[in-house]
């Protein structure tokens, strides 16, 4: 048997249910792995050894009493912008450094009810703004496959933790690719669900019309297990959609015969796309054809405008959402103030890092008098056209295949001084957020330098079961998801 920390959730659940291992053994194995490895990776902001072991003991009792679920006793990581009432929730920002939320996020309630063990809070770009996890106020996270490279972002800590076996699965959030891109860069499976599928109650808001919580896991079956646990309507989130949730694990059974895979000409025409990424994605599409899928060229004519629209909408919404950090109710306060305005200014200037301040300024400018029509309104209209493109494409195909990121993970420091170049690395992922559709990343190869490459599969609203099934079938025919980083 493999070492316990190397197990998938499905494998561990089987052993736990059979009584062959205990959650306390499993949790200790993961905590020992974190002790041994995370100094070199930096995936966690907070490791919760004591509470995790207590939860594991409770899980063992539940399992012994026959009250286990698929996640009972499974050690998981949670991105540090998802509220946990017993652990700090920092958003990787100085402004929330000591913040311990008074309540759990809906998804954390659900994980706790399922008996999962929360081993810690994963590093991220500050307030999820970034594509490399270099914008964390506390630490960088290194890519387990090559520690000179970034893990991607903003859910870089979650992806690196899953990849390096520092947890069995994780939750992240995705506003423009923040689950899928780090999943691709770290060779794990990451899914952004449909907007409204998963409650955002207790998710610290970045861009409210785009944010969505989703799972990162070692394979698609584990991803399906996690999605089963966190999906569903929640009246506390007014964007939550009242709609039945299928059993995503039970959906992993259909072959790909009759499946039509759309290949968007615009995505394979993009300048600046790495040749090895393109080759790996084309080979992955070939594999799906071998499995019975039919490929069809589709067109997303407004795709070239997605980055522009996104980088108006997301900073605009962020500038509004982040107005709440004013040093009054929670979080950091600069105490040198003489009056209220000065307290606000000093608190926010000392509390927010450079990228967050840049986006607040950009968003405030885009929403300010005289510019609203040229920026936010225009971007929201382009967004409509991007949504219509997907509607038309999905009239003729079941899923769309594309790269996740134009290159494998870049080197640490390569883009920190060039925000626009960093933004352009989101070119393939952020359309799904603008359109609210689900999309996932599944490992589909490695560059000659040994860096992981991901295949992105996107589908119509609420088609997560289909996406997971296609990814699962792809995994049955390939072994990329089984490869482990050299640690």
């Amino acid at each position: 048997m493999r070492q316990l920390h190397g197990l998938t959730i499905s494998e561990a659940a089987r052993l736990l249910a059979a009584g062959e291992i205990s959650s306390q053994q499993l949790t200790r194995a993961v905590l020992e792995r974190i002790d041994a490895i995370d100094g070199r990776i930096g995936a966690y902001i907070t490791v919760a050894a004591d509470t995790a072991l207590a939860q594991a003991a409770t899980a063992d009792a539940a399992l012994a009493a026959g009250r286990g679920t698929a996640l009972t006793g499974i050690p998981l990581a949670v991105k540090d912008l998802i509220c946990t009432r017993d652990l700090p929730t920092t958003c990787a920002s100085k402004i929330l450094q000591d913040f311990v939320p008074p309540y759990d996020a809906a998804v954390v309630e659900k994980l706790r009810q399922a008996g999962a063990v929360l081993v810690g809070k994963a590093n991220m770009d500050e307030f999820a703004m970034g594509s490399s996890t270099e914008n964390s106020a506390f630490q960088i996270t290194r890519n387990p496959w090559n520690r000179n490279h970034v893990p991607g972002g903003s859910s870089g800590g979650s992806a690196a933790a899953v990849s390096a076996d520092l947890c069995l699965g994780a939750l992240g959030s995705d506003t423009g690719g923040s689950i899928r891109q780090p999943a691709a860069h770290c060779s794990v499976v990451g899914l952004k669900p449909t907007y409204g599928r998963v409650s955002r109650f207790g998710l610290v808001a970045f861009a409210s019309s785009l944010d969505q919580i989703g799972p990162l896991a070692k394979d698609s079956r584990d991803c399906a297990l996690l999605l089963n646990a966190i999906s569903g309507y929640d009246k506390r989130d007014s964007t939550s959609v009242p709609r039945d949730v299928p059993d995503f694990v039970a959906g992993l059974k259909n072959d790909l015969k009759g499946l039509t895979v759309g290949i968007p000409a615009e995505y394979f025409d993009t300048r600046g796309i790495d040749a090895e990424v393109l080759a790996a994605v084309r080979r992955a599409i070939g594999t799906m054809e071998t499995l019975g899928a039919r490929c069809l060229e589709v067109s997303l004519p407004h795709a070239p405008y997605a980055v522009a629209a996104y980088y108006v909408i997301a900073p605009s919404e962020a500038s509004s959402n982040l107005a709440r950090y004013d040093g009054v109710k929670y979080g950091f306060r600069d105490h040198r103030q003489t009056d209220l305005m000065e307290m606000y200014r000093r608190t926010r200037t000392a509390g927010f890092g450079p990228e967050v301040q840049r986006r607040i300024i950009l968003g405030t400018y885009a929403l300010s008098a005289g510019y609203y029509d040229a920026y936010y309104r225009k971007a929201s209209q382009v967004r409509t056209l991007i949504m219509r493109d997907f509607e038309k494409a999905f009239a003729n195909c079941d899923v769309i295949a594309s790269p996740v990121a134009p290159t494998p993970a870049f080197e640490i420091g390569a883009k920190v001084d060039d925000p626009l170049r960093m933004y352009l690395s989101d070119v393939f992922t952020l359309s799904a957020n603008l359109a609210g559709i689900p999309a996932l990343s599944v490992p589909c190869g490695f560059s000659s330098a040994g860096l992981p490459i991901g295949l992105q599969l996107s589908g119509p609203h609420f088609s997560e079961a289909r996406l997971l099934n296609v990814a699962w079938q792809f995994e049955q025919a390939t072994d990329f998801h089984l490869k482990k980083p050299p640690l």
Partner: protein
Amino acid sequence: MKITSEEILHVADLARLELDAAAARSLVPQITEILEYVDLMQQVDTSDVPPTTHAISLKNAFRDDVCRTHLENAAALENAPEKDAGCFVVPRIIG
């Protein structure tokens, strides 16, 4: 340049950020580059295209108007940087 350092200082003030002149100047080329890139959108004909602010068509989300417990005062104040007598303390507002 699409934006001047005076405009950046004005916007920073609206956003309650305290930039010095040097910080504002260093943001000018970065914000300009982003705004110039964003202008790509102007190529798209959006006449008669309604804006989308919500990707999923949901009607107004109503809930029943029922009493329920809210966060206790002590819990709400738990993270306050300064508090007194069950209240958040802020610097003097009226001189």
